[in-house]
């Protein structure tokens, strides 16, 4: 057993961490919150040049051939300064779905330029009624000549306001299927919503959008299985980010406790606050530890190996991670609830991560429905 990063991974962590600290401090995220895009395509392209966008994709697809652990390293380190570029939305949600479900010409057309940082992707899988069930799709793909006409509404499409292509799930005659749809396709209407964490998401209405047969990823009916797998990666990615968020909030809080004075002493000398700090530390280390298991096992094709640790990790984010965020805010006192202080930005990002890709009850129920759970052996 080995929980350490190998030398290449250590280098990656350092490179991404340095980039975040030096080139994208929190002030950059702040300044881009009200921007129409919310991030900088030039920085996205630079990430492509640095090879970060190709990490989880095989070399034959123009990628780096890394494991999910490498993705997690990028996500955790970008999270430390809230770097706004859509790594999770485009690489994990869009890219990894495309890589698994698409064919060579689809890879060449859509994945390769994303890996270069020239384009970005989005995954339009959620619907108003679906609540974490990727198979609950009411959008339809009706056969139309050699192609399809897609009609329906998708919600909370991360990076959907700017992605070049959207991967859309729709019910075709053969079952839930995935289609690549250009964002500028006629009949595709986008409304942009600001999210509480300072990001953006799209609400997308598809009015009989025509696509060719070559827009379909894989066979008809293969969509739910692919999306299920993507959701595991996505939940693991949220946890990786959550580790970055929680660690940063913990450190900011410890620093604040060691600096802020009231009643003539540093408030970090008050025992009740010290004990709170220790419990925050414990929850953060529990999150980090189970996250390691989730990252390593995310690549496992055996869902019984993969899922239980990912669910356990997302559950720890929903409980311990959220608790750390709450306490960090509380211990910052009055300034913590102003928009001026950074701690609140991390707080809201943690809540967003919690709401995405399955909440605690979703993951508890999933964990408990694994046949291994009912067996006495743990």
């Amino acid at each position, binding site marked *: 057993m080995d929980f350490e990063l190998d030398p290449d991974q250590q280098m990656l962590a350092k490179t991404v961490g340095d980039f975040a600290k030096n080139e994208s401090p929190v002030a950059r995220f702040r300044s881009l919150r009200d921007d129409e895009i919310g991030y900088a395509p030039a920085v996205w392209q630079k990430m492509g040049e640095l090879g970060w966008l190709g990490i989880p994709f095989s070399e034959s697809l123009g990628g780096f051939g890394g494991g999910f652990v490498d993705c997690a390293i990028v996500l955790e380190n970008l999270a430390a300064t809230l770097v706004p570029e859509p790594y999770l939305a485009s690489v994990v949600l869009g890219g990894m779905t495309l890589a698994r479900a698409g064919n060579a010409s689809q890879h060449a057309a859509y994945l390769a330029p994303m890996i270069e940082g020239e384009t970005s992707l989005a995954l339009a899988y959620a619907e108003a009624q679906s609540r974490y069930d990727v198979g609950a799709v009411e959008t339809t793909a009706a056969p139309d000549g050699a192609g399809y006409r897609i009609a329906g509404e998708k919600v909370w499409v991360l990076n959907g306001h700017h992605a070049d292509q959207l991967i859309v799930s729709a019910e075709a005659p053969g079952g839930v299927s995935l289609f690549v749809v250009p964002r500028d396709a006629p009949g595709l209407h986008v409304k942009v919503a*600001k999210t509480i964490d300072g990001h953006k998401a799209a609400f997308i209405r598809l009015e009989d959008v025509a696509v060719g047969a070559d827009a379909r990823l894989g066979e008809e009916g293969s969509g739910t299985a692919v999306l299920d797998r993507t959701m595991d990666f996505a939940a693991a990615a949220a946890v990786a980010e959550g580790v970055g968020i929680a660690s940063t909030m913990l450190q900011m809080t410890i620093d604040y406790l060691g600096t802020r004075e009231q009643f003539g002493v540093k408030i970090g000398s008050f025992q009740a606050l010290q004990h709170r700090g220790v419990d925050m530390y414990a929850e953060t280390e529990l999150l980090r530890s189970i996250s390691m298991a989730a990252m390593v096992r995310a690549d496992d094709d055996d869902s019984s190996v993969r899922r239980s640790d990912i669910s356990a990790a997302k559950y720890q984010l929903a409980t311990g991670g959220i608790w750390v965020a709450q306490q960090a805010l509380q211990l910052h*006192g009055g300034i*913590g609830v102003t*928009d001026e202080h950074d701690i609140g930005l991390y707080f809201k990002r943690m809540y967003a991560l919690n*709401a995405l890709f399955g909440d605690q009850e979703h993951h508890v129920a999933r964990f408990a429905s694994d046949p291994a759970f009912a067996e006495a052996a743990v």
Partner: protein
Amino acid sequence: MDLSFTEEEEAFRQEVRDWIPAAMPEDMLETARGAGDFTPEDSATWHKILYEKGWVAPHWPEELGGTGWDAARRFIFAEEMELAGAPPLSVFGLGMVGPLIVSYGTDAQKERFLPKILSAEEFWCQGYSEPGSGSDLASLRTTAEDAGDHFIVNGQKTWTSFAQYADWIFCLVRTDPSVKKQAGITFLLIDLKSPGVQVKPMMTLGHTPAFCDTFFDNVKVPKENVVGGINQGWTMAKALLGHERTLLAMIGPSRNVLQKLKRIAAHKTANGRPMLEDPVWRARIARLEMRFRAHLMVSYRALADQQKGKMPGPETSILKLVGTKLIQELTELAMEVMGESSLTWYNEDVCLPVEESIGPYFCYERAATIYGGSNEIQRNVIAKMILQLPSS
């Protein structure tokens, strides 16, 4: 023991319940039924309507504009306002500085200030905290220098909620730096239109401009604006804090969030059925409602004491602690029930029906465990004052 209201009290309840929808403008009724996101203007409008009815200050003495109701009627009135989702009135004038002036003000102060608080001609805000003085309020540094018949005030107040809508501010200022820190503080009323005052709204976590930084640069304040005597400010502050505690029980807001939570859960689905019918979600909501009931009973005990003209018992000391935690747990659960839709702000009607929005309110209530004496400070005080645990 008797936990019911009398027939007369129930008749009064019906009177209030019938009056509200008849008196409230149609657009505000709609907001009350929906998101409840009233503007400060809505609150001012409602304030004036209540003023004309004579119901704006139930807890003031009748001769100064109060209603003459007993504690039960005041409670019923407040409960009906909350149940109707009426706009909250600004608390700083009616609930804080007004009662203080009633108790400690000069006759001239009563005449000058009270009528305009009642009529909503003047709104107030509170100037206590400073950047370096939060939990340790007594360390405040804003100074009021004696200049004969007036003071010259210099310094910065922060957390001055709704100062941008206010006409006056009541402040704690340091008038004697040479004595023990609590002893040199004075409670001072300052006209925000005075030269040298600058109000800078700050954005909150929830992206609402709820509070401000307020700066004082050689501001001239007449000495007749002192309440309770020079260097008596700490006594005034303590009198107000005790009063704030029952306000901070958050009974009304908790009831509203519980209702909203159930409304959302009744039609939002998980695993193909309304969440309110899912045993796990149903149980989570029920647990908070059961806790709310216990908390409500503590409030009722305080009410019954007031009704008998008794000092509220020591158990009222926990109202702020329990109530603010509960409102946070309720909004946290609402965020969870909303699922991905909790990612939104209320002004994004693209995302979801506006009456389901919870995010900004959730963010707003994060402050509840901090203001009015943080819950950590509350515990310090209860440990010493009520439990009489030893000092370190």
